[in-house]
């Protein structure tokens, strides 16, 4: 069922949208989105900040930085009151873009060249709130921490699985802890103070007949740091509660057939985030509501024990989305067919 009170605007980009995020700003009047774009015809990639205008409702290019290769992971945060964007690229380099806090123009860039962090292109990054430290994990099995100074970067390798385990998603839980995800719906919990490997591993007792999948995205709610929300293949969304180690709480998808869970999608769940909009007064035992986007074109909200709500059903894949921190009713998402869409929920 589609929520009738949702306004949707689509903005064609004429280029492939690799990732899309809201840019967190202090100002309540100006709103900006960060887009990672790739032009297949000229092989040019860029990270662009677009301004969202209200009258008429439009998304206009504001400032741009050309990237040496395609962006594989994008994460904005702020550092010393200034917006900071971190991007990892498909050639393995990592870039930090500092922007102006008042007009969101890009000011400076520091980067780590390809090969410094990962031997393999595909990698995923997360930036700590406040932007002091960035964690970068990759399919090559390396886990790196990058500290951000005023003009320099320092980095260290926390772990290297030598390719025996690949990581496809990462998320900070606290200044010391973070969670990673990978193949076989595996999740790992890490603590900077305990190097040498993950402090806890999750490999749930999935239904044995089901084929396994890959975790594409993780979210951890600041108020519930012991619960790790993960989305991946086969429409799977599950939560891993560190206190109930080996049993996943399935919210959608794989394994849902024999429980009372309704699946919102059957294909890849590309991104999952806690939905900041819904003020749920559920007890602390229930998982907070979350939003997902999927390969079969669904953007929706799922809540434990409730029927999923479809916000958008597109004929093409929705590859990423972001909920605006300051206006949680606004969601921006990237569509496979070279466009972004902005939803405003009433």
């Amino acid at each position, binding site marked *: 069922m589609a929520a009738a009170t949702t306004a949707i605007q689509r903005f064609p980009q004429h280029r492939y949208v690799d990732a899309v995020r809201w840019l967190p700003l202090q100002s309540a009047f100006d709103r900006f989105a960060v887009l990672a774009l790739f032009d297949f015809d000229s092989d040019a990639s860029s990270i662009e900040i677009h301004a969202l205008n209200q009258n008429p409702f439009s998304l206009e290019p504001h400032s741009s930085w050309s990237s040496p290769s395609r962006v594989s992971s994008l994460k904005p945060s702020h550092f010393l009151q200034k917006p900071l964007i971190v991007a990892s690229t498909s050639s393995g380099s990592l870039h930090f873009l500092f922007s102006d806090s008042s007009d969101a123009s890009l000011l400076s860039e520091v980067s780590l060249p390809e090969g410094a962090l990962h031997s*393999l292109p595909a990698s995923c990054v997360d930036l700590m709130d406040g932007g002091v430290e960035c964690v970068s994990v990759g399919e090559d099995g390396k886990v790196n921490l990058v500290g951000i100074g005023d003009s320099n970067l320092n980095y260290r390798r926390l772990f290297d699985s030598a390719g025996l385990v690949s990581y496809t998603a990462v998320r900070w839980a606290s200044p010391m802890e973070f969670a990673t995800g990978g193949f076989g719906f595996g999740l790992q919990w890490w603590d900077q103070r305990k190097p040498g490997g993950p402090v806890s591993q999750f490999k749930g007792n999935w239904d044995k007949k089901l084929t396994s999948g890959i975790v594409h995205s993780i979210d951890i709610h600041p108020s519930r740091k012991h619960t790790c929300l993960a989305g991946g293949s086969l429409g799977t969304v599950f939560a891993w509660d560190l206190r109930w180690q080996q049993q996943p709480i399935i919210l959608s998808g794989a394994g849902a057939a024999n429980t009372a869970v309704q699946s919102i999608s059957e*294909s*890849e769940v590309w991104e999952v985030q806690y939905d900041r909009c819904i003020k749920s007064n559920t007890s602390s035992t229930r998982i907070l509501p979350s939003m997902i986007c999927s390969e079969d074109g669904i953007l929706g909200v799922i809540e434990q024990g409730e029927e999923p709500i479809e916000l958008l059903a597109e*004929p093409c894949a929705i590859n990423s989305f972001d909920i605006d921190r300051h206006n949680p009713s606004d969601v921006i998402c990237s569509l496979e067919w070279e466009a972004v869409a902005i939803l405003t929920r009433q």
Partner: protein
Amino acid sequence: MPSDTVGNVALVPFTGDSPPAVYPLHHGLAPPISRLSISWARGSSLRLSLFAGAAAKVVEVKLAGEDSEIPDAHWRRIAYGSVAPFALLQSRRSSLSALLKTPSPYRSDWWEHVLQYSKEIGSLLGGPKLPASPIIEDPNVIAKRGEEPTSLKAAWELIEIFYVDKQSQAWLPERLVDWLADYASLFTSTHETIHGKLVDFQKELVNIQVIEEDPRYWDLLSSALSVGWLDIVVKMLRLHGSYQLDQLSNRELENGLVEAVAVLISKMPRMRPESVGKLGECYKSKPDFIKAWEKWRSQITKLDCSRFWIQCDNQQTREGLRNLLQIMLGNTESLCMATCYWIELYISHFLYIRPFTMGIESMYNLAQKCIQLKPRSSTHRLSVLMIGILEENTEVVLAECSREFGPWLVAHAIELLTAGSEQAEILLHEERYNLGGISIVELHRLVYAQILSSHALTWQIAPIYLTSCMKQGMGLLENLLYRQSAQHNDVLLKNIEICRLYELDHISSNIMKIAGVHHWKHGHKGAGVFWLQQAQDASCLDKIAQQLFDSVGKSISDESFKQWEGMIELLGSESKPAGGLEFLHKYRDFKKSLQKVSSGKSTDAARQAVGSLILLMKNPSTPQRFWLPLLYDSLKLLNWQDCPLLSVSETNLLLNKLHELSLAKLRPHHTEPSLPPDALSSIRLALATNLGQAILDE
């Protein structure tokens, strides 16, 4: 084909009348070029790799011939947007034909579905249609150019008018009038048009002092009137000098005549549904229209015979206005004078001579007559298409669409061509020997799907078109899916998702195998094992297991075992196909229990460790090369102080394994594990001691 090419060895005989065109290529290499390799790059680009001595350069050459009217990115938008309407129409077609149990969905109301499809596709080709020449407040603007129309949209609408829209069949002539009004500017590129003349005149309008003295003013008035642009004509008439306040008094009569003509023009009866903002009086039923038409004509005749003309002393005004009356009365000569090319003349015939729908054959004859009256050296592609349609030759229409507008239009317009005619449906859907057993419809869909397949951004929509092709579609779809890169996870997963949608399990399992081997070869062992497990490829897993054990054997110290943990987790439960990798599981269990033993002195833990050891040694999947390291790792268990941990039979089993090992040493390809030189003897000693104690105990 000329006869001399018969027997020619060329695959595609070159029969061009003109010599081949030569284009210079800037590669910046010093000659001589020693080698040249040509391959296809993205889209319709060629990749040329040039080698000259030690230097080499790769150049991409974009082949011309693309429609410059619509840029690539816009073409992709059209391609994306047409997926949903196309898929909906196909599913309606198949559900209808399942219902009727006939292969052809031809039914009286089928055209309504096609019309809906046509409107949706049409809306992709350009924004909302603007009125041809919106009258805005500025009196000097007579013909305003709205959004630039495209030939593609014009072609689509033309096909829709003739083949699909049954509702407006009764006012087909008026629809053609509107069509020309919307797209007249397109023809300006090839020849002189009324639209072009109007635009030119407008530019000079500010410099003209007395407009009615300019002969072009009267020419353009009659031209615009001949093609029915009433709004423009009335607006231009009101620019006439006699309307100016200071002249009104002494040109009263002249002004009266101008206004009378303007009123007559704005009252012209039209056989069409009401249209907002357009001049003329609309009638839906034929009898009402005929009545109004007769009345209007008699009014014109009356004005034409009026005595006021003699009293009008402005000769130019008099002649110009009377010429307008002649056009309204359908004077063939005036119409021919007023129009620039055959389509304009054709439209003027519909407006002023034969305002009723007629059979397509007589429409064709009329077109022939107009072409004879307005012969042209250069013809626009839209006018070629129009003649094809009027000829009622579906194949010509298709060929024209394909040649001039490309595969997108053909693949989508075919649905329109078959909408109202069972005959066309049969013609286009019948299997043809000369096409290798496929139908014309399938041929054009395949061609379009190939174009989509060649671009990284559109290959994902090609399956929609391929699966609608009964004969060759699935084969090409399999090809397409195999061809995608297994290197990037997201492309791979999107590919597998398409396999899932079309239930192509064998393809997805092959793709996963390819991905598994790719990852394995590039050192992402975990990812490799995952994909091979997903593909349930036990034999490949067995093979890589052997390679994996090499690195296990070398680096299996307790510290590095942490790295293996994740991989073993990935292998999952024993019910999953893990091939020879199952060993790793048991090995991990054994290592864990051994760790417990080393940290404490509990005999229970030691017994558990022995149990794991025996399980491992008994299991046929345990590779032989691990036997000695396993035993060496367990020395502490074998030399257990308190009591013998192994029974007699268990000890014998291990001794037998040692014996087997000594025999294996004689075989070629045997590799000695890197253990201390006294390892074997200390194991033998420990086993012997244990055996002795066990015998005593038993």
